[in-house]
């Protein structure tokens, strides 16, 4: 199968989009953006300065009042324009995601659809942002109402694993509710946002309403240090999420910070084996295991353990690893050399700790892409709960298989984990499924589903060290995060 064509081979210098203008960063610090399958440099991204971020926030603040006064129905119309433009550009967006991030083109198409879904949901802002009132609510002849109001300028700091979707968990809701916005994409994958912002520009948002600033720590610190920035949305690792949350507290910003994960998929003795194995494969290996919803621990309960691991390993061997733009690839590379090194380190650690390596993806060679950051499917058996590979986030295509005697043991194991992003159960027993759903302290629960990816109209949840804050991205939670409730009590003499 031929590889699909790339939108561009070389995207040149990545630019910022501030106050409706494309501007070159004045920074002296630039990073190479690499295609993780070929390791070729496909662009250069600026690490924008604190001053550049400050300018963007000032432009957003300047634009805010006029945008806030734009009726919600008019704001929604611009979102509708964007939706139509994104449908037109669907395939290009997906191919850029695949090219810069490494995920398979089907995965990237799924991600593109998720971007558009968030625009669609935000387009319904006229009803989502509606307040409520009660006649004589305060006393006779005194009415009381709640108005849902925007707050000003918000920003987001986004990760490398979903260059398209994660920014769309946030900015459509912020902007549709009447705020203005600064997006800082991951410096490892800035090209999708670069492309999407051209579409945003075409859609007709007024200058300053939505801005793009590329960069790293300096840009993020400038966000926290600016008095006009009201809040920050973040997705990334737990240590950084904690830091973001703390900085937000110190500087009086609203924060929603999504951290890491260590998700367990629990297979009960009555699970439908073939369906279960097939479904878990996409959880463990989709996006090369670099999803915060990816399965990491496979837990076989009771008698199913042996047949499960046998089938799982056989199926894992058939996962075709290759360039994401080759439509026949089931799994692409990890994002970078550093990421590969880290994942390989965990595999070495697993071996050292005494786990049995049933499938070793360390030395995989992908013909035509020998330099790429590929890791083959890797499966450990005889993993115990105290091993590092059972406890820590690996963020790669590595599966730790654990055997448990009962559902209670599995739940106890899940609860010992500091993360609480997602967990799934595979069973035909409604009682077990109900117990799992009820007891497990994770934000996203799957019943015979390995990737518990909330649709745009539901929040992307998370507990414990997987989320810091109260309101999540997407849907009504996002609307609440970017607005406040203003109570008005009225009496006419």
């Amino acid at each position: 199968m031929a590889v699909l064509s790339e939108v561009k081979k070389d995207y040149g210098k990545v630019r910022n989009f501030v106050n409706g203008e494309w501007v070159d960063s004045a920074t002296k610090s630039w990073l190479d953006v690499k295609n993780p399958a070929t390791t070729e440099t496909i662009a250069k991204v600026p690490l924008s300065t604190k001053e550049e971020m400050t300018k963007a926030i000032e432009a957003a603040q300047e634009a805010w009042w006029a945008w806030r006064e734009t009726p919600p129905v008019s704001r929604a119309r611009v979102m509708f324009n964007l939706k139509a433009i994104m449908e037109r550009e669907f395939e290009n967006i997906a191919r850029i995601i695949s090219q810069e991030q490494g995920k398979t083109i089907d995965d990237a198409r799924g991600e593109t659809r998720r971007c558009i879904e968030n625009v669609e949901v935000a387009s319904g802002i006229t009803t989502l942002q509606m307040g409520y009132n009660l006649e004589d609510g305060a006393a006779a002849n005194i009415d009381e109402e709640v108005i849902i109001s925007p707050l000003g300028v918000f920003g987001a700091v986004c990760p490398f694993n979903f260059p398209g979707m994660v920014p769309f968990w946030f900015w459509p809701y912020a902007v549709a509710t009447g705020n203005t916005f600064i997006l800082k994409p991951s410096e490892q994958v800035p090209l999708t946002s670069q492309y999407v912002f051209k579409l945003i520009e075409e859609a007709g948002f007024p200058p300053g309403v939505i801005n793009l600033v590329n960069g790293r720590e300096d840009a993020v610190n400038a966000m926290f240090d600016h008095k006009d920035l009201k809040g920050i949305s973040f997705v990334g690792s737990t240590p950084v999420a904690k830091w973001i949350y703390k900085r937000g507290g110190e500087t009086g910003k609203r924060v929603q910070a999504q951290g890491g994960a260590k998700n367990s998929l629990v297979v009960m003795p009555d699970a439908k084996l073939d369906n279960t194995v097939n479904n878990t494969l996409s959880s463990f290996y989709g996006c090369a295991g670099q999803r915060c919803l990816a399965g990491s621990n496979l837990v076989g309960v009771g008698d199913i353990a042996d047949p499960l691991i046998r089938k799982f390993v056989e199926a894992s061997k058939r996962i075709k690893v290759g360039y994401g733009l080759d439509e026949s690839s089931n799994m692409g590379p990890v994002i970078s050399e550093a990421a590969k090194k880290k994942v390989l380190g965990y595999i070495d650690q697993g071996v050292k700790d005494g786990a049995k390596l049933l499938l070793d993806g360390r030395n995989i060679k992908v013909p035509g892409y020998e330099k790429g950051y590929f890791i083959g499917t890797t499966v450990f058996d005889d993993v115990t709960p105290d091993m590092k590979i059972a406890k820590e986030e690996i963020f790669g295509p590595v599966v730790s298989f654990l055997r448990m005697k009962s559902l209670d043991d599995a739940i106890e194991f899940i609860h010992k984990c500091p993360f609480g992003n997602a967990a799934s159960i595979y069973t035909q027993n409604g009682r077990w499924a109900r117990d799992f759903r009820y007891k497990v302290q994770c934000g996203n629960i799957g019943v015979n589903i390995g990737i518990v990816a909330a649709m745009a109209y539901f929040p992307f949840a998370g507990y414990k060290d997987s989320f810091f804050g109260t309101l999540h991205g997407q849907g009504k939670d996002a609307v609440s995060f970017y607005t406040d409730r203003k109570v008005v009590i009225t009496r006419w003499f």
Partner: protein
Amino acid sequence: MEYEFPECNSFGTVIRFGLELERAATNIYDELSRDSKLVAGADTFRALSVVHKKRGDLLEYTRREKLNEMILEPIQDLDAKKYIIDTKAPKGVDIKAAARYAAGVEERSSMFYADSAKIAKNLLSEGARILERMAKENLANKAKLEAL
């Protein structure tokens, strides 16, 4: 015209295979409809060309709308080689031979969609319904061709 029929190891590659089938069928019927020896079947061939173009659009729509990260499960039991069609429309043959050839294309395509629908049922019921319908439509097309 070059076609690339991929191995079918995911729902996405099943759709890609189907897209190639539909592109090939569209071109085959276009060619047949232009053949001066096949005037008796020209209207049918033209109509079938349009049908297959629309089916390609439907598959494209399905890929864009129905594939998301929840249903990226690998497919491991569909032998794509069995369904590859002969994409070279015969030249200089009579209407019966041309219709027989085209009916063969429809039959093989129908097999592909019917078998894919069975596999897709567990992954994506909406997708499976579309594939089932396409398989039936292929057989209806075959019947039309056999009447020529």
